[in-house]
């Protein structure tokens, strides 16, 4: 070969190296233009050259280390050229391969093995070619490099074949002669689902020739018969079937099937076997004879159609962007289903603005609409003639519209319609029976709140096996629900003089029975009619009743009377940081607190005292005759909220002359208990006062049973009632 040609080729090889490294680095970002696709596909054509050339050159190279060959100039020259041509052809093949790999969807794993072995061949070859003329090129290197290259060649070829022909191509025809594809319409549950599973995982041992456990799983009669350990299954009862037991017993067990070390059943396969037994182990049942919602059918369909395409390809062209834009109003949204999709989805809202024009205006995009949302619009049968023109419609929601069975017939021309929602419309059984036959592709229809009865649905279901009927719930009174409890409707349950009792229940038409004397609100209790006037702090017990419902639990409600509101309120002591509530006003603002007050978020309305006493001075401009002072407190033992240890009431005609009227020591909990709210009342002999001082001392040391013993307790008060 002429020297300059050879140096050109050498340079070309160098360029190829750089180019391939670049491609590998940026592989994920490569976008191969369409006109280069044929170049990529020629990978399959060219790849045979480097295989042969490199194989020859490597063999020559390895033998070339023998002295006898070494001395022959022709041998040396020939080997070098074959190697160069081989490496270059390998490089081009690699580039083509990289291009091709970006076009198709190949199995990631195999592809990556193929790619990296292929690339290594090229780099190995390049290195060998580059250093072979230098004196560092040793016999060992030649032999090792050559052998590796040959191994790589074989592996690359093997993985490549797996890519194009599939795994196990060579043996497939010998091993498996039943790989027939059955359309789902004709598939039998046993023949096309169950038997292939058994054949691939079980009959290796359980066949008439091998007879492990005296069990044969090759034909239905033998499957029925079972083996040494008895019958394989109890039809309809997978839980107690031997087959399921053997599959699910722990893998270490000897009884586990298939035995560990053999290919195990996949979760889908296990589930199929379970469902098949559950469906009474039929041998001649077709998949389509099962109801469309049946688990076995769903799983079987998915199992047989693994390659089913997800996206619905649309055959129409897209609408004009400006037209689509102009069709959007505040009450009608027209938007593309997805980027680069010609399909449009339309939703219409607001009853008041809906007219038949709303649909009529959509005629410019009638071919593009695939989804239409008209729920609750006053759509009439006439409007459906417009809808029927949207020939590519897939989903249509007509829930709670004014359509009837007549309109339904017009929709039958929609050949692509798959989902139809008719809940809350006037369609009835005769309409459906008559028209459904024309809906070719319909698979789901919702009929809740229509005139169709459950029996009629069953009839439709037997007639139209491919349609799923959504019927929802009908209240037949067989599962009555318990009413919730009545509530007080007052803005505040604290009142000054008297209050008209207002009991309230959210459910219409309930009867509320109540007592105010602490008795149970049973059937003898009075019925609430809104005329009861309460003049004292009262505990009300109430219960709600309604036919068709279970009666509510009895609820205990309180109203509080606080007659003498002081003219001025002075709080003489400090409030706890977390519980400032509404300052001194808190005690007379008619606002009560709730549980969980230890958390700052719910501390509202609770005034708290932790390390100091509560000292409250009240002033009345005119003397009042008082007989009772009460404070509403929260008790939550878990979080150290306790009632006061001592309450002292001081009173008198003027601020200097107040004296102790009474002192009491409220009881405090003796053990942990659930939080509760307690009104602590001090009754005093009637007397007139202008000034009143209330002192409540929180517990200084928590009792010894408490986890925080010896620490001070927290006192929480939300209201003080003076009568």
């Amino acid at each position, binding site marked *: 070969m002429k020297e300059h040609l050879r140096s050109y080729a050498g*340079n070309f090889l*160098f*360029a190829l190296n*750089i*180019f391939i490294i*670049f*491609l590998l680095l*940026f592989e994920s970002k*490569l*976008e191969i*233009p369409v006109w*280069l696709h044929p170049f990529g596909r020629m990978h399959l054509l060219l790849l045979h050259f480097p295989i042969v050339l490199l194989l020859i050159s490597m063999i020559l190279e390895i033998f070339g280390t023998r002295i006898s060959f070494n001395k022959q100039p022709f041998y040396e020259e020939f080997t070098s050229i074959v190697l160069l041509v081989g490496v270059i052809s390998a490089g081009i093949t690699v580039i083509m391969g990289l291009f091709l790999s970006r076009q198709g969807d190949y199995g990631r794993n195999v592809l990556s093995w193929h790619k990296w072995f292929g690339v290594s061949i090229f780099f190995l070859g390049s290195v060998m070619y580059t250093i072979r003329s230098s004196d560092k090129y040793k016999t060992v290197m030649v032999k090792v490099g050559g052998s590796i290259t040959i191994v790589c060649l074989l592996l690359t070829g093997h993985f490549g074949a797996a890519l194009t022909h599939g795994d196990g191509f060579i043996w497939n025809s010998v091993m498996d002669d039943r790989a027939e594809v059955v359309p789902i319409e004709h598939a039998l549950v046993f023949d096309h689902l169950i038997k292939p599973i058994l054949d691939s995982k079980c009959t290796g041992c359980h066949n008439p020739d091998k007879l492990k456990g005296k069990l044969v799983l090759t034909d239905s009669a033998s499957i029925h018969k079972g083996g040494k350990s008895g019958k394989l299954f109890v039809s309809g009862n997978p839980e107690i079937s031997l087959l399921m037991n053997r599959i699910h017993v722990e893998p270490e067990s000897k009884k586990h099937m298939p035995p560990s070390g053999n290919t195990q059943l996949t979760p889908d396969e296990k589930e199929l076997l379970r469902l098949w037994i559950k469906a009474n182990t039929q041998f001649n049942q077709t998949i389509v004879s099962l109801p469309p919602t049946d*688990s076995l059918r769903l799983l079987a369909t998915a199992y047989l159609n693994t390659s089913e395409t997800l*996206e*619905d390809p649309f055959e129409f062209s897209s609408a004009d962007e400006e037209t689509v834009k102009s069709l959007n109003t*505040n*009450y009608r*949204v027209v*938007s593309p*289903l*997805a*980027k680069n*999709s010609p*399909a449009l989805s339309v*939703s219409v*809202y*607001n009853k008041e603005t809906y007219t038949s024009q709303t649909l009529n205006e959509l005629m410019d995009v009638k071919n593009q609409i695939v989804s239409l*949302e008209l*729920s*609750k619009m006053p759509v009439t049968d006439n409007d459906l003639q417009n809808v029927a023109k949207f020939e590519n419609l897939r989903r249509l*929601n007509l*829930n709670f519209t004014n359509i009837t069975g007549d309109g339904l017939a017009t929709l039958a021309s929609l050949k692509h319609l798959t*989902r*139809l*929602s008719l*809940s809350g419309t006037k369609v009835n059984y005769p309409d459906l029976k008559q028209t459904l036959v024309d809906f070719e592709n319909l698979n*789901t*229809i*919702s009929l*809740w*709140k229509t005139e169709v009865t459950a029996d009629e649905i069953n009839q439709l279901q037997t007639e139209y096996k491919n349609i799923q009927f*959504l019927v*929802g*719930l*009908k*209240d037949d009174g067989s599962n009555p*629900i*318990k*009413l*919730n409890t009545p*509530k007080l409707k007052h803005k505040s349950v604290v009142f000054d003089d008297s209050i008209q009792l207002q009991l309230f229940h*959210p*459910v219409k038409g309930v009867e509320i029975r109540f007592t105010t004397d602490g008795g149970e609100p049973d059937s003898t209790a009075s019925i609430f009619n809104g005329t009861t006037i309460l003049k004292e702090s009262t505990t009300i017990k109430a219960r709600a009743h309604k036919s*068709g*419902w279970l009666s509510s639990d009895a609820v205990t409600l309180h109203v509080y009377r606080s007659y003498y509101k002081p003219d001025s309120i002075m709080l003489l002591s400090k409030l706890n940081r977390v519980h400032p509530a509404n300052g001194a006003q808190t005690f007379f603002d008619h606002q009560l607190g709730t549980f*969980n007050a230890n*958390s700052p*978020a719910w501390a509202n309305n609770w005034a708290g005292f932790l390390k100091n006493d509560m000292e409250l001075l009240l002033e009345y401009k005119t003397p009042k005759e008082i007989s009772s002072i009460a404070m509403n407190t929260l008790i939550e033992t*878990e979080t150290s909220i306790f009632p006061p240890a001592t309450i002292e009431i001081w009173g008198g005609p003027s601020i200097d002359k107040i004296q102790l009227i009474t002192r009491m020591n409220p009881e405090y909990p003796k053990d942990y208990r*659930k939080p509760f709210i307690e009104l602590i009342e001090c009754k005093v002999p009637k007397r007139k006062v202008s000034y009143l001082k209330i002192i409540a001392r929180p517990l200084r040391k928590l009792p010894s049973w408490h986890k925080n013993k010896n620490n001070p307790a927290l006192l929480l008060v939300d209201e003080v009632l003076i009568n």
Partner: protein
Amino acid sequence: MGNDLFEYGLNFNRRRFLSKASLGLGSLALGSLLVPGLFGGNKNQDDNFVPGIPHFAPKAKRVIYLFQNGAPSQLELFDYKPKLREMVGQELPASIRGGQRLTGMTANQDSFPLAGSFVDFKQYGESRAWISDLFPYTSKIVDDICIVKSMYTEAINHDPALTFLQTGAQQGNRPSMGSWLSYGLGSENKDLPAFTVLLSRGIGNGQGVYTKLWSNGFLDSIHQGVQFSSGENPVLFIKDPKGMDRDTRRKMLDNVSSLNQLAYQEFGDPEITTKIQQYEMAYRMQTSVPEVMDVSKEPDDIIKLYGPDCLVPGTFAANTLLARKLSENGVRFVQLYHQGWDQHGDLPYEITKQAKDVDQASAALVTDLKQRGLLDETLVIWGGEFGRTNYSQGTLTKDNYGRDHHPRSFSIWMAGGGVKPGIVYGETDEFGYNVIKDPVHVHDFHATVLYQLGLDHERLVFKHLGRRYRLTDVDGKVVKDILA
């Protein structure tokens, strides 16, 4: 002469170098033709996405997220662990805990006694899923839901964990999930916000929720969540003030709008057009909101379905019913929060109450959507921000215990929206502590939800402060196994 020879060698090398370098550069240049935008930066990546148009045809159009705030205990609801009952009171093996960091509430505890569930479990449905006796209604819809037992998160405290689940980051300055969807899918009904929020509170120990959870972050403020509250004024500041009639309001809006237009022409701030749109929507919401929020026309069987509490404003049941109504009216993302699931102590009592609050209404929502033919296009999600520990916080007694925060495993369920019904996905070890099969990270969960709505989580980006942000940050993979 020697010099010449040296010079020759240099020349030779220089020539060789230059020719090789040109070859190399040439190859690189040739290769670069195949990588579009290699030298142009990623400029057109943002242009790729048109807000409001999904990347591919969506399976689900809307989401209702029944968020159980405070982290419900998976061990009392979905993740059945008989082993914990057998080993009750025994120490949590260190090998299982594997050095997991603990919260300040139990880190100093002397021992970690395992606590079994106080409540029994039974199997339901075709999938034979284990459901606790606390959920009698949920157990009836098992065939419609997909229970994921292998969720895990990174945060161990409520606020970061909640923020992480809602925004994809723990710190809380990012757009909420609902805002991303509003940005990605646009509004279906221009009378209502695309993202609404409803709050309720149970009797259990509660944790706060804050408006940052439904913030639009750096997205346009039109994508912000709008809180609907119970009572007379469901949406604050939407009613006309006293003495203002609708015509006057209209005139005022028209004038404000033309002023805003002028401002926009002068400054070109897109936030001004947002303002105009929001005023207009608020005007339309004055009629649409009262209609949506009115539950008085709901028939008796619906009230029985959701339970009579659905008529008591502010309860979870009422919010669930409203969620259905909002969703039915085209609201893309309805976010509920039910507070009170933080059972550090007194768990048996509190969780029983909490479960009762949500069980019937949650199941009712799925049933109701189904009978309207809406379940296949509405994704319902039920779950909290993390799980709870398998050991007791505080003293373990025969009938009382508490559980601390546990990020390594928790259970949620999803229904509708193209998610496989009637399956249980993922598994935890027999202690219910670590995920041993099919783990689902919060980012994976987000990626999956976006995927069902036709959005590629890697392409739903927004450039802010020089960085392209995603809901899934730099991670997340779609859990295809749970998709139908």
